[in-house]
Each structure stands twice: as structure tokens, then as C-alpha cells.
């Protein structure tokens, strides 16, 4: 599909929003809208994939919109094509899912008009080729998603979540605006081609990098700009959460890539340092928070933060390699980053869909009230399990393949000349490993508490399997998680034109190796074969089962749980999400997050119930945001006195201004 075709399709998406508004009385409106979005997004995905695989040449187009003398520039190259495919595939999956999920939605009229424009805006960001269209679409994306976050505005903390979200989004937009202003330079050329032509000086480029980190980082969820994400993502309806977490964060990374790897010109060696440092901090902080929270969707949102950190580590590595002239290593790291982005969009969407299924079945997001859902919802549970396994980087699923590539890239770093990098990268590697291990614990907890065990509440007991649209969407994503995991070579090769575009080098073709293995550097150095590992595990498990069932016993008896002999324990005696996290909380988070346990244990003989309380604080709130808000409030309070002056005092202000200006005039010349 050509760029013009893409734009027409996006225009169709944009038109669906107002259509939803005007057709509000039509029956089955939600099926109509979601079906339309599904078809259009499928079309766009197909077009983007075909262009990507065929190695289509970049294509540009200017429309007489946007800034009048500049026009609206659009361009599709390999990078845009990749993100176009990621965005639209996830959006198509989300729409398909919403064909079922959307029916249970009460606030239809607050979702349908905003959903198609949200998808369209993400598409436009990716296709934009000048600063104005980029920021316009970027802000439109924020705005539409803000409206979607506010869909359930009467519930709980959602309004606050929406507020924090729109605020942080705008902060990011302003940062990007300044960055583009700097890139445009004195002659104010705001088209991307113009910016490419005039790379800024080293100092300005450093400032642009910082601004891009703030701008894109606030949208993607880099620490300490992550605070909105765990509030806003859960507040939105689940298919929207999936898009926000799975895709919108990627669009943010696209913005970062476009600025730093494309527009900014030659990079300095140290740029990778802050990127990796924030990335590592983000990864660990994100996953630790994920372990501390009980809200299903909030845990997923925090885990998104972790994955964004992982991606930024890989991006930083890539930059560090690139600036030191190690092309293949840079290509490896960049491939890993892109691969992980793709994977995260798949499994995070899948997990949010799963949480939406749980929500549909139980109307409950608190893990502490769930349990035993696997029996009632076997398919949803299975898909969720695949997602959990993929995000925990279990071979042979896709999450492992990309993290493995990142580790391989880290192992190449001793050849870097800079001491800072030499010292930083191992530490980053350790943090990455820690984050990966913690993610495993986090998802054991998430899946184990909500899907396994016995129901902890009435809602969980009454749960039923969800409809086939939702299952279909989840199933497709789960299958893709497996496919991308067992056939990483194809994905890597498909990514290579993008990587070449970004770092000017590419990895050796992987599909030439036998047995579908991948060997990023050399076969003697490291290799991995997802397909074989998958086949081995599957065959040996089946073999073992077959042998035992055939040669030994296959008799089974269903009985009450043994539980060391304790009789009929109450479901409340199961491990709760809090108690599951307790050992990890004690080891890692006591100091960093000020996690405090308060135990109120009555003395023997005292009949009052015992209480256990847990308080978690995000130090980022305490040390970054609270001072800022306090400062603004104090400023507002102080200045607010000016509202209550007497007329005489106001006149004094005028008088003072006059005298001041006359004095200035007298002193001047």
C-alpha cells in the first residue's frame, strides 16, 4: 500500500470518531466502529508489512495542511513502516477484542468517539515528517487517550489519574517542542529533511538529547517521569490500556529514535551513558513496584515501565557502540531493542486483554479477591500464562529471544574504549539480570494468585469464560508470542533494514544458518535455537508422559488437599499477593521505597482481630513531584495576595511600573 493509501485509511479512522458521535442512536454501534477500525488497521498492517519485507524505498508526500508555508509532510521509511505495522497490528487486535469486550462497556459514548482518533493519531505520529505534524499528532494522541482514560471518570481515582496523565503528557510535548525548536535552528526549518541537513552543534545536540529523553521518556515511562503511567493505564478500559501500554509507549520510543538516531546528526560517545543509566533504573524500579501492587492492571502498567527501561538499555548500548565505530555490535543492540519492542507490544497487549477478560468475568481488578480462575476460564488462563511466560523471558517464547540478544550485546562491550562505559555496562547488565529475575517473580505472583489456587471471593467463584472475540484476539497474540520466540531469525532479518537505517550497519543474515538457529556474532561465540529448544521440551515432556502412562500407572484420585494435614482450610489462608511479595519486599524495597509493614497483633486472650498494614511510598513523588507542586502552590498562594489589594495598592503598582520605566529611560543611553 502506498503512503497515500495509508493516509486515506488513517483519514477513515479519523472520520470514524465523529461518525460514532453522530450515529449514537444506531444499534450495534460499537460493533460497527470496532469492526471498522479492525479492518482498516488490518489493511494498514498488511501494507506496512509488505513494504517492510519487500524493502520498499522511502516515500514522501506533502499535503496542504498543518503549518501553512510548510505543508504537512509525511514520509514512510523502514523505521516508520516497522512502527506502523506494530501500531496497527496491536490496534487491530484490540479492536477485534473490543468486538466482544466493548459490549460489556457501560460508557460507550465516552469511548467510541475517541478510540478511532487515538489509533489514527498514533499512526500519524509515525508517518509525520515535519515537527508540526509530529507534535500535532503526538498531542492529539495524548488528548484522545486522556479522554479514554477519563471514560470512567466517576470511579475512584480515575480523574486524578487523567489529570496527572495529561499534565505529564504536556510536559513531554513542551520538551519535544523545545527540542524541535533547537533542531530547527535559527532559520526555523521545521521539516525533518531540513533538520537532517543542518545538524546542530555539540552543546545544542546535548540539550536536544536531554529534551528528547524528557519528552519521549515521559510518554514512554522512564523513571522519574513514570508516575502517570501506573495511574492512567489501569484507569482506561482494558483494550485501551493494552494500546496505551503496548503501543503508545512504543510510539514514544519511535519519537526518541527519530530525533536521536535520525535528526540529531552524529552522536557523542557519552550519550549512551545517561540512556543506559535511566534505562537500568527504570527497569528495576518498574518491576519492584509491579511486585508491590495488587491491582492487576497496575501491575501490568508497572511492568511496562520495566520493559521500557530494558529497551532504553539496549538503545543506549547501541548508541555507545555506534559512536565507537563498532557497527555490528551497534546493530546487534539495536536489533535487540526493536525486537523487544515488538515482543512487548505483543505480550503486553495480550496480558492487558487477559486482565480485561478477568474484569469482564469478575468485575474485579484486585488480585487479593481473585483466585482459581484457571478452572473457570481455561483458555483465557492459558493465553495469560503464555503472556506471563513471554514477559518473564522463558525460553522458547519471544521475550527470551530479545533479552538474550541484549545480553549478547552487553557481552561485546569490553571492546569499548571509554572507561565510563566499561564500568557502567557491567553494572547495567547486573541490573538487567536482576530486573529479569524479578519480572519472573512478579508474573508468578500475578498468574499464581489470580488464576491458580482457590477463589478468594464470590466474584471469582462465579467467573465464566469470556466470548470468542476476546479469546480470538488473545489466542492470536499468544500464538505470535510463540512463533516469534521459536523463529527469531526471521524477525531479526526482517528488522535489519531498519537497523541499517538507524545505525548504518546490520547483523549478519540469520536465516542462512541451519536449523533456524540464531548466532548474533559468530556461532562459536553464542547461538540459540528457539525452535529446537521448543521441540526438545515438547517431545521430552510428551515422551515422559507417554512412557509413564504406558509403562507405569495412570490412575488418578481426586481428594481434598493434603496441606500437611491441616483440615479444610479456608481460602483466606492462601498466600495473598502481599504475602507472596513479602520476602522480596524485605530484601529489596525496605529502603528504596520505604515499604513499611505495620502489624497489630493482639495479646493472647484479647479477642480483637489482628491487623496487618502495608504502606508503600514512591520516593519519586516525595523528592521530585511534591516539591514542584509545593513550589507552585506556594507561588500561587504568595501571588494570590495580589487579588485582594485595595484600589490604592493597585494604583501603587501602576505608579511603581511607571516610575521604574522612567528611571530606566533616564539611565538608558
Amino acid at each position, binding site marked *: 500500500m502506498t503512503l497515500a493509501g495509508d493516509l486515506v485509511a488513517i483519514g477513515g479512522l479519523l472520520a470514524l470518531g465523529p461518525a460514532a458521535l453522530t450515529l449514537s442512536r444506531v444499534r450495534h454501534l460499537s460493533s460497527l466502529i470496532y469492526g471498522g477500525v479492525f479492518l482498516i488497521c488490518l489493511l494498514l498492517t498488511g501494507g506496512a508489512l509488505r513494504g517492510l519485507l519487500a524493502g520498499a524505498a522511502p516515500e514522501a508526500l506533502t499535503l496542504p495542511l498543518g503549518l501553512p508555508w510548510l505543508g504537512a509532510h509525511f514520509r514512510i521509511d523502514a523505521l516508520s513502516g516497522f512502527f506502523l505495522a506494530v501500531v496497527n497490528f496491536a490496534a487491530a487486535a484490540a479492536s477485534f477484542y473490543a468486538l466482544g469486550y466493548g459490549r460489556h462497556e457501560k460508557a460507550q459514548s465516552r469511548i467510541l468517539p475517541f478510540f478511532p482518533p487515538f489509533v489514527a493519531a498514533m499512526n500519524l505520529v509515525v508517518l509525520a515528517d515535519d515537527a508540526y505534524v509530529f507534535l500535532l499528532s503526538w498531542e492529539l494522541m495524548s488528548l484522545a487517550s486522556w479522554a479514554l482514560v477519563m471514560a470512567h471518570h466517576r470511579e475512584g481515582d480515575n480523574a486524578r489519574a487523567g489529570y496527572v496523565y495529561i499534565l505529564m503528557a504536556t510536559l513531554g510535548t513542551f520538551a519535544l517542542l523545545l527540542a524541535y525548536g533547537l533542531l530547527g535552528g535559527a532559520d526555523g526549518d521545521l521539516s525533518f529533511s531540513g533538520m537532517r541537513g543542518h545538524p546542530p552543534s555539540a552543546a545544542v545536540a546535548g540539550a536536544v538529547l536531554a529534551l528528547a529523553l524528557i519528552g519521549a521518556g515521559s510518554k514512554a515511562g522512564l523513571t522519574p517521569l513514570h508516575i502517570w503511567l501506573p495511574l492512567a493505564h489501569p484507569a482506561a478500559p482494558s483494550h485501551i490500556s493494552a494500546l496505551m501500554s503496548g503501543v503508545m509507549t512504543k510510539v514514544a520510543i519511535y519519537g526518541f529514535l527519530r530525533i536521536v538516531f535520525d535528526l540529531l546528526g552524529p552522536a557523542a560517545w557519552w550519550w549512551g551513558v545517561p540512556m543506559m543509566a535511566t534505562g537500568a533504573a527504570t527497569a528495576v524500579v518498574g518491576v519492584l513496584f509491579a511486585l508491590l501492587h495488587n491491582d492487576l492492571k497496575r501491575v501490568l502498567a508497572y511492568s511496562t515501565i520495566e520493559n521500557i527501561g530494558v529497551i532504553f538499555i539496549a538503545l543506549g548500548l547501541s548508541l555507545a557502540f555506534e559512536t565507537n565505530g563498532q557497527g555490528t555490535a551497534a546493530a546487534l543492540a539495536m536489533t535487540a531493542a526493536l525486537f523487544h519492542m515488538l515482543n512487548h507490544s505483543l505480550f503486553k497487549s495480550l496480558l492487558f486483554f487477559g486482565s480485561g477478560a478477568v474484569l469482564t468475568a469478575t468485575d474485579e481488578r484486585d488480585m487479593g479477591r481473585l*483466585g*482459581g480462575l*484457571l478452572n473457570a476460564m*481455561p483458555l483465557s488462563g492459558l493465553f495469560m*500464562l503464555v503472556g506471563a*511466560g513471554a514477559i*518473564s*523471558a*522463558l*525460553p522458547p517464547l519471544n521475550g*527470551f529471544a530479545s533479552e*538474550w540478544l541484549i*545480553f*549478547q550485546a552487553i*557481552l561485546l*562491550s*569490553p571492546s569499548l574504549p571509554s572507561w565510563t562505559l*566499561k564500568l557502567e555496562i*557491567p*553494572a547495567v*547488565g*547486573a541490573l538487567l*539480570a*536482576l530486573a529479569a*529475575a*524479578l519480572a519472573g*517473580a512478579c508474573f*508468578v505472583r500475578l498468574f*499464581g*494468585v489470580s488464576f*491458580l*489456587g*482457590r477463589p478468594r471471593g464470590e466474584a471469582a467463584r462465579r467467573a465464566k469464560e469470556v466470548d470468542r472475540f476476546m479469546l480470538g484476539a488473545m489466542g492470536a497474540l499468544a500464538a505470535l508470542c510463540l512463533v516469534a520466540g521459536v523463529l527469531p531469525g526471521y524477525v531479526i532479518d526482517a528488522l535489519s533494514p531498519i537497523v541499517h537505517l538507524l545505525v548504518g550497519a546490520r547483523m549478519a543474515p540469520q536465516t542462512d544458518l541451519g536449523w533456524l*538457529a540464531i548466532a548474533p556474532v559468530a*556461532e562459536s*561465540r*553464542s547461538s*540459540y*535455537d528457539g525452535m*529446537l529448544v521448543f521441540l*526438545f521440551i515438547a517431545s521430552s*515432556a*510428551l515422551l515422559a508422559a507417554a512412557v*509413564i502412562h504406558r509403562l*507405569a*500407572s495412570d490412575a*488418578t*484420585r481426586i*481428594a481434598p*488437599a493434603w*496441606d*500437611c494435614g*491441616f483440615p479444610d*482450610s479456608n481460602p483466606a489462608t492462601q498466600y495473598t499477593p502481599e*504475602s*507472596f*511479595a513479602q*520476602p*522480596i519486599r524485605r*530484601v529489596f524495597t525496605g529502603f528504596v521505597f520505604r515499604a513499611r509493614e505495620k502489624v497489630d497483633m493482639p495479646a493472647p486472650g484479647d479477642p480483637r482481630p489482628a491487623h496487618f498494614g502495608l504502606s508503600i511510598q514512591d520516593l519519586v513523588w516525595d523528592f521530585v513531584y511534591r516539591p514542584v507542586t509545593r513550589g507552585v502552590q506556594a507561588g500561587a498562594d504568595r501571588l494570590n495576595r495580589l487579588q485582594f489589594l485595595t484600589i490604592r495598592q493597585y494604583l501603587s503598582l501602576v505608579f511603581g511600573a511607571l516610575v521604574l520605566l522612567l528611571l530606566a529611560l533616564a539611565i538608558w543611553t
Partner: protein
Amino acid sequence: MSMFESLAIQIVEMLIVLLAAPLLTGFVRKVKARLLRKRGPPVLQPYRDLIKLTKKEAVIAESASWLFRVIPYLVFAATWVAAALVPTFGAGLMFSWSADMIAITALLGSARFFLALAGMDVGTSFGGIGSSREMMFATLAEPAMLMIVFTLALIAGSTQLSTVAAFMLSPAVGLRVSLGLAMVGLVIVAIAENARIPVDNPATHLELTMVHEAMVLEYSGRHLAMIELSAQLKLVLYVSMIACIFVPYGLAPPGAGPRELMIGAAAYFTKLAGAGALLALFETSVAKMRVFRAPDFIGVALMLGLLATLLRFVSREM
């Protein structure tokens, strides 16, 4: 070497680890008993246990899901595949390139992931205890393991175990500080991962001190057999790994003839015996730690690994 031969060697290798696993456990128990001046069960007792278990009826809790029945086989398969990819008596296994050390670590991680889920499936408090603590140990042991892998990879220039082993045999190795640190770290990780004293006690069923045993409390019959076997396989895996990295002597090089293979096999069994004896000695001479002391112990491994990696990063020529 023809493809058929190498396939045969690979299969033999897989069978050897499978068969050696209960033997090693039995041997360790025997030595331990002797050290305590007990007679102890016969060395072959684990085989008998396994066979007996497989023949018994499996009792499954009412609240268990389908996952509960699948997990033992998955855990067994993941562990076995991982163990089969570690060179035992000969390097250059046919499929050793399909997973490097990182992937082997991750395979073990998968096994643990599912085992922890199994612990939570029935919905009892003990299962939860086990899973929760196991995952906490893992969050330290896995990074430690990866740091050790990094160190080795930096020294040998590869994360493939065969290549590392070959490098270790070459004169280029010499004596290195990082290697020593890595070895100590790996041993600590191995102890923790295999639920040995002082982190966990494989023989105890005292409710509040269990970790691994608490997770599998509800298993019985053939499922329990699979899990026991996986645990034994894991022990063999770690011993083989330590052996092939730090004492690769006698390891048959790729494409070796039958004689070298025989020597390799003999050396391998000697190493297993030696390691078993050392493990038994160590376990009888220390006491089990409190659960919340264990992170400090495993943390030592992480620190050692990080230190070793840093040393390697900083001084490539050292």
C-alpha cells in the same frame, strides 16, 4: 564424524545424565549418612523410590487445575533439555549450540517458574510459602548466575559451554582472580538452586523451614516422581557445569574417538563422585540458615559475580 554418530553420542549423553541423576543423589545421601556415622539407605535407593512412585496412584487435590498435572512433565522436560546441553564426558555435542549458558540458565528459570506456579495451584498456605521464597531466592541467584556467565564469556569469548570448556583446556587460561571469584560464586548458586543446606534442606518436612519441599507438597505418585527426578537432574547439571568449566580435564574434544570418549566418561564419573563427596561433607559441616539470612548468602554470589565481571571489563588483558 558422521551425523549419525554425533546424534548417537548426543542421545547417549542425554541418557547418561538421566540415569546418573538418581545415582548421584543416592551417593550424596550415602556419604552424608556415613559421615554422620549412620549406615544410610543403599546408593540405588532413589531408583527404587522413583519406580515405586510412578506405579502408585496419583492423588490430586480438588482445587487443582489442569496446569497442576502438566507442570511435572514440563519441569522435567525443561530440566532434562538443559542438562542434556551441558557437556559431560565430551565437548562438541550435536545440539550444544542450540542453547548457550544464558539459555540454559533461562531453561532452569522456566522450570522454576512452573514449579512455583504449581506450588500456588492447590491454594494452600504451604505451597504459597514455598513459591514465594523460591522466587525470592531466584531473584538473587539468577542475576548471580548471569554475572558468572558474563565473567566466563568475557574470559573465553563465548557463552557456549563447549567453547568455554575448550578454552579452559588451552594454555591461554592461566590463573586468574576473576575465575576464582566466578567459581566460588557458581558453587554458591549451585547450592542455592539445588535447595541444599544452608539455604534449604532437601530432607526436611518441617513446615516452616521448607522451601522447595513446600512447593511440591501436594504432589504424589508419578507427578512427584517427575519432580524428584528433575531435582536430581538439576544437581547433575550443576555439577557437570562446574566440572566442565573449572575442571575440564579428560573432557573428550569434538570429534574424538572411542578411546577418548571412554577416558572422558571415566573422568566424568570421577568428577561426579568427587563433587558428591564434597557436597556431603559441606552439608554435614554447616547448619541451615534462617530464611531471611539466605539472601545474604546468595547475595555474596551476586557480588562475586559482579566483581569478577567488573574485573574482566576493566582489565581485559589481566
